[in-house]
């Protein structure tokens, strides 16, 4: 269906030729002809993109261009929006996440998501992190303690809160809350991390910490981050994708894209000619 369309789609240089969805070593997640419509209104034109393992990919573009829409597809959060229609394929471990038989709960556990606003649950810090693992598996107290400590350490929060794990997660500062939310996502051990403007509600110091965290997480995770901050994209990402008006315009290595954008629209956006 999608393949029959004659519209020219931006081709990601890293996209592998294999059309059968087989996973190659340099591919953690691959979209093929992914498109989204809200009701009648198309929000994302069919696009292809491949995400390599252990990389950070930044999604940039003006407000309303479909970055969040694209991101929400990847762990099927769009299923929660009535009248949102997603077309195409999302290949993950050789399976199409958009195929009818795919287990959305398993998929979301493997592809975690962090949101713009820090939103801890009204539970203790400990229970916030233990929340996911507890629901998914039977764990002993010791195992759970270990997961909580490891997740909190990973986000550099453990030493700050180790004496008050019983305290409500809502009593932390904004930056701490966001790191708690990242720890909560890490606790279910995802392979891919989706982050939708994770630092836009944070102060510069917390932002620095979360950026460092993204780089660190990219050692063993595939990180995909939406950002409005060009410097942030340059600082943290290996590859950058530029969206404009519901279309993936261009994607490439970050350095290349920022210094020699191939498309005129990318050039205009980067030089601030439209926002």
């Amino acid at each position, binding site marked *: 269906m999608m393949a029959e369309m004659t519209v020219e789609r931006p081709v990601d240089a890293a996209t592998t030729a294999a059309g059968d969805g087989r996973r190659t070593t340099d591919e953690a997640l691959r979209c093929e002809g992914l498109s989204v419509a809200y009701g009648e209104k198309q929000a994302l034109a069919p696009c292809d993109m491949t995400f390599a393992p252990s990389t950070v990919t930044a999604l940039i573009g003006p407000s309303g261009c479909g970055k969040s829409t694209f991101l929400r597809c990847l762990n099927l959060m769009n299923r929660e929006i009535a009248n949102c229609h997603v077309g195409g394929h999302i290949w993950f471990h050789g399976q199409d996440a958009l195929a009818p038989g795919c287990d959305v709960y398993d*998929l*979301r556990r493997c592809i975690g*998501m962090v949101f*713009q606003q820090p939103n801890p*649950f*009204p539970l203790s810090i400990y229970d916030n992190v233990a929340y996911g693992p507890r629901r998914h598996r039977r764990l002993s107290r010791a195992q759970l303690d270990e997961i909580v400590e490891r997740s909190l350490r990973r986000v550099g929060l453990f030493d700050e809160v180790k004496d008050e794990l019983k305290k409500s997660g809502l*009593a932390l500062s904004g930056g701490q809350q966001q790191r708690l939310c990242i720890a909560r996502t890490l606790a279910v051990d995802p392979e891919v991390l989706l982050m939708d403007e994770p630092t836009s509600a944070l102060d510069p110091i917390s932002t620095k910490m979360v950026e460092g965290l993204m780089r660190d997480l990219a050692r063993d995770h595939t990180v995909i981050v939406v950002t409005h901050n060009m410097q942030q994209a340059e600082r943290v990402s290996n590859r950058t994708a530029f969206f404009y008006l519901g279309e993936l315009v261009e994607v490439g290595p970050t350095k290349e894209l920022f210094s020699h954008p191939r498309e005129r629209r990318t050039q205009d956006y980067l030089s601030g000619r439209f926002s």
Partner: protein
Amino acid sequence: MPNQDAMTREDEGLRLRGARRADRAATIVLGALVAIVCALVAALVFYVLSRGGAKLFDLSFLTGRPQQFKAGGGIGPELFNSFYLLFLTLLISLPLSMGAAIFLTQYAPAGPVTTAVKTAIETLSSLPSIVVGLFGMLVFVLFFGWGFSIISGALALTIFNVPILVRVMQQALEAVPQGRRDSSLALGLTRWETTIHVLIPSAIPAIVTGVVLSAGRVFGEAATLIYTAGQSAPALDFTNVDLTSPTCPWNVFRPAETLAVHIWKINSEGVVPDLAVVSAGSAAVLVACVLVFNILARVLGRALERKVTAA
């Protein structure tokens, strides 16, 4: 040019002054309106308590049996009946309305059916209570043949209470930040797990406040009960645990006059000589209980809010 500047500045000044005057006037008028409302409530409570307040501390009145013909009767059975009916009503209406609210906010797809259900619930919540009472009489008392009984009364009160509770719970659940729900789903949890472990704990302070406030309304309700729970209060024997015996307090098939119905009855057909005293005392007890419910609602709501957000 400078002239024009001065002009606009003057205009601006006039406009500002006008706006400030309007603001001051609004403050005064709104303040006066609030004062009138407060005065009304205070006057009512003061009147009721000044007439029957002394009875609040009269143990023989609070626990004694009502009298048919001579003075000195109490309201013991009525007080017990009121609390027992309230308890049973909440026992039935809480799970019902919780389920309905969860379904409507989390599961029901937006569409004509959901809209119809929501409209139906809103209509039900504005139904006159005497109509609910007569409906209860037709269905529970006559059709099911349960007679004037606690169970008939509790079910009628449930019809009266459920729409209010559903709305309170719906609003509480809808007020939970969307991101919190999404975060839970994004961890791979089902909607049900998300509802149980994230949404309800988040909404519980508002839900508790709403439930206790609705309890105050149920406690003082008379019209719904006159023709369902009946107007007689058989003597209760608290040592009797035979659930089929009419003197067993826990027997749900016995008739049970509540405090509110008692006030209505002695005023319309009472023949006791100290009618005015009994009526004023009962009213004071009723008002005191409702006041306690309202204060409890605030205290509990705030305490839960604090527990959820801090410490």
